[in-house]
């Protein structure tokens, strides 16, 4: 009998105590991200600085795993009505987020509705362009953005008796690789992120379309177009290098990093954000060169595009919370925070002012090559083919591209065959996305 009476009592007690706690501080917001290790520490520092800089708002940052896992966590949370205020989403998830009109609160609207100070013109167009509408309205705030560059192990070249200037074209690279190979080098070149560097950025840099409809910016009915002449030529060249032992494939992500750090591979195409890792691990003198191009392709070099992630504001939060979000996003855009982030990580600054500040501080003189990424991205005004990519199901399309490229490196398919097949298979995914998003 006693048990019977005390159970409901306990339940009521719990309920009452929960209710008493429930109206928590209204301006505490959640920020889910995918930054790990050192980057996570740096992000936590930014958040701590923001929280200490004022006493109205509190940001709580939580790591949710890698990019795919973080996006998944955000989506699952949204379905359960538990979404964070801010979600970090990688660039390939951009189309997915954009087309989820009821799930996101575009940054330009947020700034307008909260009456926050917001001047879109302070941002570097080459960076924000990836995340803006065709009318130039900012949908999400770029957080970590990088672009591919070429890292060179100077000592390996010296040992092979190569005395060359930094290569600017792929023909220059070919000469170096041949010399390295002839000198008995086991791994003249490797790469990270093959699709991002050798197809997506390659296309933008040579001002040829990766997909129709301005690479997807113009509409959901976009079709892949990366089996053009220029792309086939490049993949064909790399396929031949793979057969000759001049290019050694390491894997779909940045597995090549450790091979370059250890001195096994001499040349390495990788994100500018790989700088921190190279600097920390390489026990040899290295140079950074701009991404090479083919000088016989008209318009090359155009500009490269970014990779990385941006911050999306989720729908369904209170006015107070959005005030906090706006304050935090503005805080992240301040020159000091941006310059610090840029110098610590190798990611690009998102405002012109942060770039100027870094230059004034003498960072580029002390660390030669760190400004190459910015110059390469901002050298020319972006065209329809070099603004960025906005394709649905893009993570899977990249998977398909990886599969087809692997067949080229293994010598099983010609470049033309592989790229044709990747376009065909990718288009099916685009149609499926169009169908799911278009109703």
């Amino acid at each position, binding site marked *: 009998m006693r048990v019977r009476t005390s159970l409901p009592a306990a339940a009521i007690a719990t309920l009452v105590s929960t209710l008493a706690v429930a109206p928590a501080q209204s301006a505490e917001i959640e920020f889910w991200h995918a930054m790990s290790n050192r980057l996570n520490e740096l992000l936590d520092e930014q958040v701590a600085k923001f929280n200490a800089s004022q006493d109205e708002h509190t940001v709580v940052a939580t790591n949710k795993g890698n990019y795919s896992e973080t996006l998944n966590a955000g989506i699952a949370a949204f*379905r359960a009505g538990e979404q964070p205020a801010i979600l970090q989403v990688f660039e390939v998830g951009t189309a997915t987020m954009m087309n989820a009109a009821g799930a996101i609160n575009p940054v330009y609207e947020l700034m307008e509705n909260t009456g926050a100070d917001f001047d879109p013109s302070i941002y570097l167009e080459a960076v924000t362009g990836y995340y803006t509408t065709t009318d130039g309205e900012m949908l999400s705030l770029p957080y970590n953005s990088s672009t591919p560059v070429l890292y060179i192990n100077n000592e390996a070249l010296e040992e092979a008796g190569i005395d060359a200037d930094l290569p600017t074209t792929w023909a220059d690279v070919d000469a170096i690789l041949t010399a390295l190979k002839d000198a008995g080098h086991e791994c003249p070149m490797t790469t990270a992120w093959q699709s991002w560097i050798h197809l997506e950025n390659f296309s933008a840099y040579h001002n040829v379309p990766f997909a129709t409809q301005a690479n997807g910016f113009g509409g959901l009915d976009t079709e892949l177009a990366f089996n053009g002449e220029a792309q086939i030529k490049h993949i064909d060249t790399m396929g031949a290098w793979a057969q000759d032992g001049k290019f050694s494939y390491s894997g779909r992500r940045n597995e090549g990093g450790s091979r370059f750090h*250890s001195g096994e591979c001499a040349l390495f195409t990788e994100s500018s954000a790989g700088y921190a890792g190279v600097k920390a691990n390489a026990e040899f003198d290295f140079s950074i060169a701009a991404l090479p191009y083919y000088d016989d392709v008209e318009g090359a070099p155009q500009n490269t595009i970014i990779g990385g992630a941006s911050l999306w504001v989720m729908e369904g939060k209170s006015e107070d919370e959005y005030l906090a979000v706006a304050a935090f996003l503005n805080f992240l855009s301040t020159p000091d925070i941006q310059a610090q982030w840029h110098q610590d990580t190798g990611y690009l600054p998102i405002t012109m002012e942060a770039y100027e500040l870094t230059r004034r501080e003498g960072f580029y003189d002390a660390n030669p090559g760190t400004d190459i990424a910015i110059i390469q991205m901002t050298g020319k005004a972006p065209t329809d083919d070099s603004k960025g990519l906005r394709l649905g*199901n893009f993570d899977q399309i990249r998977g398909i591209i990886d599969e087809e490229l692997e067949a080229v490196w*293994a010598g099983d398919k010609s470049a033309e065959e592989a790229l044709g097949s990747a376009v065909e298979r990718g288009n099916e995914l685009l149609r499926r996305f169009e169908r799911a998003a278009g109703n």
Partner: protein
Amino acid sequence: MAERVVFRSVWLPWLLVAPQLIITAVFFLWPATEAILQSTELPDPFGLSTQFVGWDNFDYLFGDRYYRASFLTTAIFSLSVTALSMSMALLLAVLADSVVRGSGVYRTLLIWPYAVAPAIAGVMWLFMFQPSIGLFPYWLKVLGYEWNHVLNPGEAMSLVVIASAWKQVSYNFLFFLAGMQAIPRSLLEAAAIDGASPWHRFRTIVLPLLSPTTFFLLVINVVYAFFETFGVIHTITAGGPGQSTMIMVYKVYADGFVGQDLGSSAAQSVVLMLIVGVLTVVQFRFIERRVHY
């Protein structure tokens, strides 16, 4: 005279089986129904809108030659894992059964790998076979063989099969050993006195008497290879190179949780559910007949 226990109340038996029924309902019936429903829909990732598409998800799947190819990949993978892990386990069990001294140590060591999580097993094998820093590729290179499972489909498949089988050997070993120890010594001794060689004794006495164990392990291993090898594939190859190690359960994950294509992912789950159902029926109808209990 034995006293028969009879439940007088109507609800007590139901109450007693209720936990099992609830677990089945919550962890099987409910998700399975959801999967069947979702396989006819095309939702957007955020669940903001869903359209009914009928058979379209299945049409789309079976129209994809890479999906059809994954049936074969899965079959090769499952058969290889099952065959390798069971034969290795049987061999080890025979050897361990004949050990006189220190058998406890051998057994403990052989059972050990079972405690290793699939993802960790995957990473461990990946380290050993990593083309540029792994020990095995280094040794193979000395012998004149260039190992690169990142590009070579056959090598990638071998590696995931070995890693998955290795994980399961312990479990099989345990059951085989127990099964062997349950075989009456007198049978084997009688055969030995009659002049039967060890191999003859093994083939005509041990193997038939082990058949219930073998059958049980066959079912368990096939289910293991189908569903629990996800971690190994994820850490070692992620389905590559190309789609050469893309087994069906990994594709469910890749399409659903990486690609956010929940409709197709649900359709694949339904196909997988049917396959396992059919396999189980086949195993019990046709193979079990050959089992002597």
